C-alpha cells in the first residue's frame, strides 16, 4: 500500500488532485450546509431549530432566511449558511431579482429566474459528481466484459471486435434520442447511461489489447493445461493483469464524463430542469446575452473538477506502471 502511495505521489500534482477532488466531494455531500434557503440553526418564537436546512421542518415550509430574519423576536437568533439561498428558491424574501450582477447580496449574481448563482453552483457539484462516477461505473463494467470476451476466442473477437468498431463510430446524438425516447422521463441515470454507451468501446479496445497480450503468457498456458475453465482463466488469470487500462480510464473518465454531461445539458439533452447543473448555467449564459457571472463560475467549477480528476488519473497511471 505504502509503495503504491509513493508511486502515486510521484506524479506531479497527483496529491493536489486528490485533495481537490476530496474537497469537491465534501462540497457535494454538505451542499445543504453551504448553500440553503433555511438557516443552519435558528431560534424563532421560543422554538429551537437545529439544521433546518437539512431536516426542512414543516413549520418553516413557507419561510426562508430573509423572511425569518425579518420576523426575529428580541430573544431570537439565526445562523445562516455561507450562501443564504437555496438552488431552487426563486424569490428569496419575496423580492425578484432577475439577472442581477454580483453584489453583496448575491455574491455571484442571479440567473434568469432570480435564483442565486452561487447556490446553484454549489449544488451543481452534486450533479457532476453523481453523473460522472455513474457513467464510468457502467462503462467500466461493459468495456471490461466485452474486452475480455474478445480475448477468449477468435469468433468472439471477430464479432465483438466489429461491435467495438461500430460503437466507436456510432453518432452520440442518435443514441441519446433513443435513450430518451425509450423512457418517459429524463433523469440522471439516463444521462449517465448515454455517456457510458458512447464511451465503452474506447475502454473495450484497450482491455482487449491487454487481455490478448496476457493470453499469450506462460501462466495462462499453465492454467489451461491444468484444466481451468475459460471463465476461470479470464477472471482469475487474465483480468488482474489486463485491468490497468480500466483503472486508469476510470480516473480520467470521471473528468471526461463531467465534460460530457456539461455539453449535453448545455444542448438541452442532459440533466432535466430544475436540477442545478453547471451545463445549465452555461446555457443560461448563452441565452442571457453572455453575462459574465453566468459564464465564468461554471467554467471554473468544471475546469477544477476535470483537472482534479486528470491529476488523480496521472497518479493512478504512475502507480500501475511497471517499475523501472
Amino acid at each position: 500500500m505504502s509503495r503504491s502511495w509513493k508511486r502515486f505521489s510521484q506524479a506531479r500534482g497527483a496529491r493536489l488532485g486528490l485533495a481537490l477532488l476530496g474537497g469537491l466531494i465534501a462540497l457535494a455531500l454538505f451542499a445543504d450546509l453551504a448553500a440553503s434557503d433555511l438557516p443552519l440553526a435558528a431560534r424563532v418564537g421560543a422554538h429551537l431549530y437545529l439544521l433546518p436546512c437539512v431536516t426542512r421542518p414543516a413549520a418553516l415550509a413557507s419561510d426562508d432566511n430573509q423572511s425569518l430574519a425579518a420576523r426575529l423576536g428580541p430573544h431570537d437568533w439565526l445562523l445562516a449558511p455561507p450562501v443564504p439561498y437555496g438552488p431552487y428558491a426563486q424569490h428569496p424574501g419575496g423580492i425578484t431579482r432577475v439577472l442581477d450582477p454580483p453584489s453583496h447580496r448575491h455574491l455571484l449574481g442571479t440567473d434568469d429566474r432570480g435564483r442565486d448563482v452561487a447556490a446553484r453552483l454549489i449544488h451543481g457539484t452534486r450533479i457532476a459528481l453523481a453523473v460522472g462516477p455513474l457513467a464510468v461505473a457502467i462503462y467500466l463494467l461493459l468495456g471490461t466484459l466485452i474486452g475480455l470476451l474478445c480475448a477468449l476466442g477468435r469468433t468472439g473477437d471477430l464479432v465483438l471486435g466489429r461491435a467495438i468498431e461500430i460503437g466507436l463510430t456510432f453518432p452520440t446524438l442518435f443514441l441519446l434520442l433513443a435513450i430518451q425516447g425509450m423512457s418517459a422521463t429524463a433523469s440522471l441515470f439516463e444521462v449517465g447511461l448515454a455517456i457510458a454507451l458512447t464511451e465503452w468501446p474506447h475502454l473495450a479496445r484497450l482491455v482487449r489489447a491487454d487481455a490478448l497480450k496476457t493470453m499469450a503468457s506462460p501462466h495462462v498456458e499453465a492454467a489451461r493445461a491444468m484444466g481451468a475453465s475459460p471463465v476461470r482463466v479470464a477472471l482469475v488469470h487474465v483480468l488482474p493483469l489486463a485491468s490497468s487500462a480500466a483503472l486508469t480510464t476510470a480516473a480520467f473518465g470521471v473528468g471526461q464524463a463531467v465534460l460530457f454531461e456539461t455539453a449535453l445539458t448545455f444542448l438541452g439533452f442532459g440533466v432535466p430542469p430544475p436540477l442545478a447543473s453547471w451545463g445549465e448555467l452555461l446555457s443560461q449564459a448563452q441565452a442571457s446575452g453572455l453575462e459574465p457571472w453566468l459564464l465564468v463560475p461554471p467554467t471554473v467549477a468544471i475546469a477544477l473538477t476535470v483537472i482534479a480528476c486528470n491529476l488523480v488519473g496521472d497518479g493512478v497511471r504512475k502507480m500501475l506502471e511497471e517499475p523501472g
Partner: protein
Amino acid sequence: MSPLLRRLLLLPPTLLGITLCTFLLLHVAPGDPAEVRAGMGRGVTPESIAAFRAEYHLDEPLATSYLHWLARSARLDFGRSLLDGQPVRDKLAAALPATLSLALLAVALAYLLAVPLGCALAASDGKRWTRLTTSALYCLYALPTAAVGLAALFAGAPYGGRGAGVLFAAASCLSLAAIVKLSRYQRGALLSALRADWVRTARAKGASPARVLYRHALRNALLPMVTLLGAELPALLSGSVIVEEVFGIHGLGLCGFDAVLARDYPVLLGLTTLGAVLTLAGVLVADAAYGLLDPRLRGRST
C-alpha cells in the same frame, strides 16, 4: 493481405452494423403513441408519423423493413423530413459543406499548431517555460467547449452566417482540445525517439543537433500522429454540434440538434449513416497515409 486491404474489406460489415443498430433503435423508438405525442409540437403530426411508418414499412417484421430501407439508402434516398417534407438528402447536402469545412479547418489548425508546439516542448524539456506551458495546456484541456465558444463570442468573435470569420472562430474552439492532446502525444513521441539507440548513434557519428532532431527523431515521431487523425475525427464531428450551436452555423450538428428536438426520425437516420461514412472514411485516410509515410510499411504484407 495488406493492412489497408483488410480495412477496406471490414468496412462494409461495420457500416451495415451501424445502420442495423440505428434501424433497431428506430424500430423501437416511435412505437409508443403516448411518446410520439410527447415528441410532437414542432410540426410533427400523428398523420406524418403514420405516413412515415408506412413508408419505412415499420409495422412489418424487422428484417423486411430493414431490407426495404437498405435498398432505398443504397440509392441515396433517405426519405423526407417529418418536419417540412423536404427530402432528407437535400437537407444533408445543404448542411454538409459547413460541417466538413469546420472539421477540416479544425484538423488543419490542430496539426499546424500541435506538431511545432510538441516539438518545442520536447526539444527544451525540463526548462521553466516548458513546464509553465505544459501546465497551461493541462488547464486548457479541462475547459468545456461550450464555455470556450461563449467566451470567444464575449470577446467579440462574429456570430452566425457563412462568413470566414465565424468559421475560423468556431474551428479554433473545436480544435482546442485536439491541440492539447496532439501536442502532448507529439512531445512524448519525440522524447522517446530522442532517447532511442539510433539517435545516439547519429550523435556519435557527429550529426548536428538540428539534423538529429529533424532528420532522425522527428520523422519517426511524426508517424504515430497520423494514426491519431483517425481517432480525432469522430470526436471533432460530434464536437461540432456544440460549436455549431454556439456560433449559429447551419451544419450537420445543428441539423441533428433540430431533428432530435422534433424527433425527425428520417433526418436522424440519414444523419447517422452519413456520420458513420464520414468517420470510416477518415479512419481509412489515416491508415492510407500511414502506409504511404512509413517506408517500412510500403508494399509489405502482414
